[in-house]
Each structure stands twice: as structure tokens, then as C-alpha cells.
């Protein structure tokens, strides 16, 4: 059974601008955000039978709701993120405390290196892919690779609208990949192509990529993704996946969607 870490959006809002999606003038409809989040949770909880672990929200930490960026969990080890922006660095101590209380072995990356958790590091069978340049520093990947004995292929993110790897790259349980090729340079695209055969790769069309089709959560043969991605859903169906959509436009005001709102614990 899958377990996901989530954080209720009690204090979610736009209090600063740290990515091109965020506009202080673009106010979040709080009630609507809470309702969208609850609907998403219902899909996980009731439709997919996922166990949801709730991290208590904290006033003044509006982005704590995006738990994917809190860290990376591998077995009983939690690597706590070190955010690039000071606005989100305030989340670090809170996240670390939560993992310690839950009995995880907490690991932090070397000072001076930024790492934004499962937002930038995603696994596909034996290989992990690490996004860098926008948020995480490439220097963390050799450290994590050595610690977890995994190959980590760094991928440069070249479009700041896709500032975390999980906004443009989504590995699925059957070895398939949803991705937006234009978010990577030719080296990245070639490295991806060498690891994932053509027929398993789906290049999400730009309009759906901008709706964050790739910010999807895959649980077994189920994929939860934001509403408004019909082409992606058709492809998923053809590959034997059941897709579940959720309206998450309040969270898109902050540049986050389904995947950003969860962190895989097991």
C-alpha cells in the first residue's frame, strides 16, 4: 500500500514570487483551494486506497503544502531539502522535525548545496534522474548517488516555467515516461532517449505541459493528474493506465499541481 505525505492548505497563499507562475496580485481563493485539495485527497484515499500522512501546516509557510519539495524518502532515510530561496528555507527545520518524530534517519546535504527533494529527483527502475540549474545544484547528485548506490543522471532544466523536474518529467510504474522535451537541452533529451525507448516515452503537448500534465502522481496503474490534459489521458489509457483528474488551478497560481502536493513515503 502506498503512503503519501501531504500538508493541508490551511495557510496556503501567494506571499512572495519565486517562480514565473507566482504573482502577488493573483490572489488565491482560499475556500476554493481547500476544496480542490480535499477532492484530490479523496481520489487518493477513496479511489486509490493510498494512506495519507498529514504534516501539520504552519502559519507563515504558505508553500509547506507542496510536500514533494520537502525532501526525498528512500526506505527509512529522509533527505531533508535545502531550498534555493530563503522564503522556503524556513520550511526546512519544520520538515526535519517531522521526519525525526516519525523515526526516519534524517540526512541533510552539505551546506551551500541546494536540493529540493522529490521535486527534482525522480526514479525510474534502476536509474534516477536529477533536475538541476533552476533549484537544485548538480553537486548534490554525486553525494546522493554514493549514499544510495544509485545511478543519477542529471538533467538541466532550461525553461524557468518548468523549474522543478517534476513539472516536466513524470516516470510511470510500467517504465513509461510523460515529459515535455522542450524543458531540456539536447544533451538532456538524448540522455533520456538513451534510457527510455521511444514507445515508452510520451512527449506531452505544450498546452498540456503548461497545465502541468507531467505533475502527475502514479500509483500502480492509476495516474492522478490535473484537469485539462485530454491528449495525455488518451495516451495513458492506451498504455493501460486509469487516469483521475482533479481541478487544481488555485495551486497552479503558485506553480504547483498534483505531484507537488504529495511526497511518496514508501
Amino acid at each position, binding site marked *: 500500500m502506498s503512503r503519501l505525505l501531504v500538508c493541508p492548505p490551511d495557510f496556503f497563499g501567494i506571499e512572495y514570487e519565486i517562480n514565473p507562475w507566482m504573482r502577488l496580485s493573483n490572489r488565491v481563493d482560499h475556500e476554493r483551494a481547500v476544496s480542490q485539495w480535499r477532492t484530490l485527497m479523496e481520489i487518493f484515499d477513496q479511489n486509490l486506497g493510498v494512506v495519507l500522512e498529514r504534516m501539520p501546516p504552519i502559519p507563515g509557510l504558505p508553500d509547506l503544502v507542496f510536500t514533494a519539495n520537502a525532501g526525498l524518502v528512500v526506505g527509512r532515510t529522509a533527505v531533508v531539502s535545502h531550498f534555493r530561496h530563503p522564503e522556503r528555507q524556513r520550511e526546512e527545520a519544520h520538515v526535519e522535525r517531522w521526519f525525526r518524530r516519525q523515526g526516519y534517519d534524517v540526512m541533510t546535504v552539505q551546506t551551500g548545496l541546494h536540493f529540493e527533494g522529490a521535486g527534482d529527483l525522480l526514479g525510474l527502475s*534502476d*536509474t534516477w534522474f536529477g533536475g*538541476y*540549474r533552476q533549484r537544485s*545544484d*548538480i*553537486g548534490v*547528485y*554525486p553525494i546522493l*548517488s*554514493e549514499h544510495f*548506490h*544509485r*545511478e*543519477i*543522471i*542529471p*538533467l*538541466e532544466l532550461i525553461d524557468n516555467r518548468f523549474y522543478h523536474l517534476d513539472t516536466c518529467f513524470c516516470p510511470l510504474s510500467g517504465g513509461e515516461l510523460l515529459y515535455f522535451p522542450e524543458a531540456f*537541452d539536447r*544533451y*538532456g533529451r*538524448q*540522455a533520456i532517449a*538513451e*534510457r527510455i525507448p521511444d514507445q515508452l516515452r510520451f512527449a506531452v503537448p505544450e498546452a498540456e505541459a503548461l497545465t502541468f500534465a507531467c505533475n502527475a502522481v502514479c500509483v500502480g496503474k492509476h495516474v492522478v493528474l490535473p484537469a485539462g490534459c485530454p491528449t495525455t489521458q488518451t495516451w495513458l489509457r492506451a498504455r493501460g493506465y486509469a487516469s483521475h483528474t482533479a481541478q487544481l488551478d488555485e495551486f497552479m497560481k503558485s506553480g504547483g499541481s498534483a505531484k507537488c502536493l504529495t511526497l511518496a513515503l514508501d
Partner: protein
Amino acid sequence: MDQHQERVCLQGHIIDSLMLAKVLDLIVMMGGTFDLEDVHIGKTREEPSRARIVIRATSYSLLNDILKAIQPHGALVEGEADCRSDRAPADGLLPDDFYATTHLPTQIRLNGRWLDVDRIEMDLAIVVDEQGLAARAVPMGEVGRGDRVIVGRAGVRVIPLQRPQERDVFGFMESHVSSERPHGHVIADIAARMRRLRAQYQQEQPGSKVLLAGGPAIIHAGGREALTWLIEQGFIQVLFCGNALAAHDMEADLYGTSLGYGLTAGRAVPHGHEHHLRTINRIRTIGSIQAAVTSGVITQGIMAACVRQEVSVVIAGTIRDDGPLPGVITDSVEAQSAMRAMIPGVGLALLVASTLHAIATGNLLPATIPTVCVDVNPSVPTKLADRGSFQAVGLVMDAASFLTELARVLGRQA
């Protein structure tokens, strides 16, 4: 030297991610060059790979731009320390542990910046100016009390020679000495370079002078006319020789002999052994070689051509010299300094038929100057290489044949 470099390290899964390719492409695209050192490729997918890359650029700011561009891709500059210096305790004395130079391009790191060492030459010390803005290779004897001398090896780096663009005999910059190798193409390459350097010299470009260091065998063997022609045609700008070459050259003009041998008859002339002494005495009477030529006493030959073409001549004396001729520098340290002063601006060195002058000149030349050593005795180019002038191309042949063939290729009518 127009070369700035830094060593960086790249590690992780740099092969399959094409990170190494990306970094190397970036370096080249931005106008730098690189050498890959110590590439270690992981044996399994999990095992990381590692590469050390030496990046070179033609300016300090380009190097910095390249470093700035590749650092986000994980390239880490390897830590380097500044060089250390100590004061010279007295004139002509170096501090203990002074750094002894090679003749390869050398840089020192001062206040975090790499600085070229000017006038590099083998077996010298490095002196830095008080402001720490310039560094120069200085011979032991010329160091002054209190000079800031580099000590130890930290913060000093020697830059290997770049393979030159030209694909000629100098392309490999390593001495091959063999009497069995054909000479034709070597001489053709030297001629091509001399032709190019003459054109550059006429346009007053730096590093376009040709230096010839020669021994008296040039005269004895019959190479005088060819060398005279080369000088008259403007192919040679600097001449290093001894008392003998100058004396026998002028003896040939006055008496038609070289060391008493009739140059055309090819046999000893009665009382011919006196000719060089009488020549020396004549020039000493006149006061200088220059005056002997301008007054019309000496009309033909190497020295006359040098005076007329305003070639810089350094005549270094030895303990067996007769006379010597006026202008011969008999203090060998002084002679060495005079020769050293002529090296800047030289773009090709021909060391012909003189063990002594070939090795003395070889010691003064930076490795970046293409050098040819011509001697009928293979041990001379070998000895030159053994003493460190590995860049010299060795040519085992008689001086007269070499100069005659070189002049012919350059257009002299036989």
C-alpha cells in the same frame, strides 16, 4: 605567452548524462581548449565517473567566463595555493629552496591570479616585482639583494607545449637525430618558415626574427657565400658566433683563405696559417669590424653583410682565441647577458656547426622557439637535447651543404 589555464574536476554520472560532453562542448564553443586528464569511467552503472579537465583560454577574462559557464554543470575548480617568495639575501645569491625554471611557458599564482613569467629560460630563478604585477626569469648572477624570489613549487605551473598549427617538421617539437633521415623536407620546412618570418619581420610583427648561431666550420667547409646571401636577403636578423667565425670570414675576404687553406684552390697556401692573425691585427688597427666594413677594407662576406643589413651580432670569446677581434666579449657572463638580451623577438633559431654556441644558445631559448641544430657530428644535437632543449630538430649534415641547400631553396642561384 597568451595562455591562461585552470584545472577543474567533474564527477558523478557524467558519461551517460552527457554532462562531460556538454562541459567540453561549452569550453570549445566559448573559444577555449581543453586537455582531459585522469578520466576514470565507472565500471558499473552505479559507480560514478570522474574527469579532470585542463581548460585553456587566450585571455584571463575568457577563462573566467568559461569557468562561470561550466560551474553550474558540476565542474569544480581544483584548489591551488599562491606561490611563496623570499628575499634574495645578497646580490647574486638566491634564497634557499628557490624555484629553478624550465624553458617551458611558466605561470605563478599571486593573489589568486595566474601571472605569466616573462623571459622564460631554463635554469633561472623567478623574480616578482614589488607590486606583484610582473614576474621575470632572472639568472642567479643578476639577482639583487632584497629581490622577491619565488621559493618552493606551490603556485608555480609549467605549461606543456601546444602542438603548433603548422604541420611541418617543427610540429612535433621533439628532437630526432639521425644521419639516415633525408634532409630535403626538413630544409624545405625551415625555408618555408624563414620566408614567412621575413615577411612578418618586414611588417614589424613580434617574434619574427631568425637567429643563427654558427661556428667557423661554416667558413672552412664552404658555407660562407650561402650564409652571406641569406643575410643579404634579409633572412637573418641575429648572429651569435665566436672570434673564429668572424676572423676566418674576414680572412677569406682579405686573403682568399680560411685558416690558411685556399678556399678556391682547396690546398694550404704558403704562410697561410698567418692569415687569420694578420686579419685580426688589421681589424684591431682599424678599431672595429663596423669601421673595417664602412671604410671599405672588408667588402664581402658574413661580417660585411651583417654590418650592411644591420644584423645584431654577439661575438663571444673563448680561452683559445687569437687576438681577439675588437667587439669580442671576453667575459663569458657578460657575453651570456648580451646573447640573452637578443632572444626576445626571435621566432626561429638555427644552430649551425658549433657545439659551444649551440648549447649556450639552446640554454637561453624558451621551448616555444622552433630550433634547428645542424652538425656533421650527431653527438651535438644529441647533447643539446640531453641538456634539455628537447624542442630542437637535429640535422646531421655538413654546415656548407645545409646553408647552400637552404639558400638554394630560398631562391639563390647556384
